[in-house]
């Protein structure tokens, strides 16, 4: 019976995460920069602005993941977070390279500050990562990894096609499009490890919902610093 209940909680978490993702992904079409991308109207200024704004938040990625790791009780999960932090903590430099390849100045992107959406997203990540045993952060990771796995590849292709850019200008998105699939399989295993009760299932889904909304806010508030 306990195993059956565990399976029910895990299914419920998967269902909740899938619903968060579907709402997030389909709703992105309402964000102006994504609407322009999807309908083939993206301008180079849009893309530079996207890279500029993402960089200011991605630069914190390795930090919130490792902070969460330091608070996790579950050893396997901690190990996963540590590996993840190590793999991603220098990704922001790819964004800087892409920005330069797309015609931007390196000093500019390095000297930038977060837009108000990125501030909210980053603040939530550090806040949630600072809690005792923050297993709900798996939900945050689900959204960020999902962006890489499901959206980054098609976006990279569409951006290249619309703006006639070289691979060196879209490598951040292209890299995440190619590599995050393994991360998602790893994510499924992690979820199965930790979601053994309703409270954890709810917490994971709730973190995903918050991060999805704040990520969208970041895209809605491009350049609003």
């Amino acid at each position: 019976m306990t195993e059956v209940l565990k399976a029910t909680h895990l299914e419920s978490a998967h269902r909740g995460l899938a619903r968060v993702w579907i709402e997030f992904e389909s709703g992105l079409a309402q964000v102006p920069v994504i609407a322009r991308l999807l309908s083939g109207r993206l301008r180079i200024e849009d893309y530079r602005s996207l890279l500029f704004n993402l960089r200011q938040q991605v630069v914190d990625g390795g930090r919130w993941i490792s902070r969460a790791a330091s608070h996790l009780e579950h050893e396997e999960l901690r190990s996963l977070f540590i590996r993840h932090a190590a793999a991603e903590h220098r990704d922001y430099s790819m964004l800087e390279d892409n920005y330069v390849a797309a015609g931007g100045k390196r000093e500019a992107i390095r000297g930038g500050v977060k837009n108000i959406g990125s501030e909210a997203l980053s603040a939530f990540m550090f806040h949630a990562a600072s809690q005792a045993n923050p297993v709900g952060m798996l939900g945050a990771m689900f959204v960020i990894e999902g962006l890489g796995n499901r959206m980054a590849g098609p976006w990279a292709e569409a951006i290249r096609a619309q703006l006639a850019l070289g691979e060196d200008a879209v490598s951040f998105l292209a890299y995440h499009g190619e590599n995050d699939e393994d991360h998602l399989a790893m994510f499924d295993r992690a979820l199965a490890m930790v979601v053994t009760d309703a409270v954890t299932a709810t917490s994971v889904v709730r973190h995903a919902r918050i991060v999805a909304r704040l990520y969208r806010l970041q895209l809605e508030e491009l350049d609003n610093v």
Partner: protein
Amino acid sequence: MRAYVTGSGQFLPGEPVSNAAMVDYIGRLSPQAERLGRLTLRRNGIRSRHYAMRSDGTTDWTLAKLGAAALDDLFGRSGLDRREVGYLATATTQNDLMVPGLASGLHAASGLPPLEIASLQSVCASAMMALKSAALQVSAGEHAAALAVGAEFSSRYFRPGHYHGTAAMNTDGTLPGDAEFLRWTLSDGAAGVLVEDSPAPHGLSLRIDWISLRSFADRFAPCMTGGGVADGQGGLIPWSHFPTIAEAAQAGAFQLRQDVEALHRMLPVWLGELMRLVDEGRVDPTGVDHFLCHFSARSLRDEMVAQARKAGCLIPEERWFTNLYEKGNVGAASLFLLLDDLLRSGQLTAGQKVLCAVPESGQCVMAYAMMTVVDGEEA
């Protein structure tokens, strides 16, 4: 809700048309177009369908007549006299006329007495709109008996004469994928159900437990369209905004189109609706005996199946009830064709749960309905 499907009927014109013979009905454009057609058929799995158009491009049929033939079949097997019906809701993608609505045309052709009507026009989900309006009318006590009828006559739009001389046609005789795809997907027919405020006195009826229909046009651009031309900015110019009718026709405004890529982006949203209903306790996937789904299981990508399984939302394929491969995709008539075939199948027993699913790619609609099999003699 207190509403029961107590009868059903269908009409499919002519003999079944095989994949090899279908091009004689929709007409030949070019060998390249037929190659894309064969690819489309491999994907949708349809093996035969019916056309209201003869192979020489002429017809005696209209949507209204097809719908009336389906009602003749329905009343030929129902205990209710058609003079007892108080409400008629129709569903179609494109009516015979732009004005007035199909319900008027069908009423005129059907031998029904003066009654309340509603013409629902959308794409496939218009069937669910019609069924829900009929169920609510009955449930509210406004009428004791109501009809919901879906009818399609798509083949008439697919004849070569509707493409030649328009901007859509390439010099080599091919159409863009979004225009060609539907020629090999949609076909003709009509079907409907009778909805009453109590089960039929004899035999099995379907109690309509609930119907859920939601539009996601807030986040999807038009995906299956007719009557407009892309403006190059992600929007559509309606045919009536062209200076002349000839210019609108030349630009291809009157052609049906399906953005197949956008359709694939809608699949998760359709599945998400099922997850919502599971979370709300309205669907127990293990308790569904017959899943009537207006798209084929094989159109789901592996990733979606895996996602549904992880989320405890996968209805085992042996419980999927389909007639798509033999009767084709008949748009707004498909839901009623499925219900009619299920009611005739001999597979139903009292107490079973029937879940119907009708997605619409038009601008993204997803509808689900839950029904319970009841035995009139026991009720």
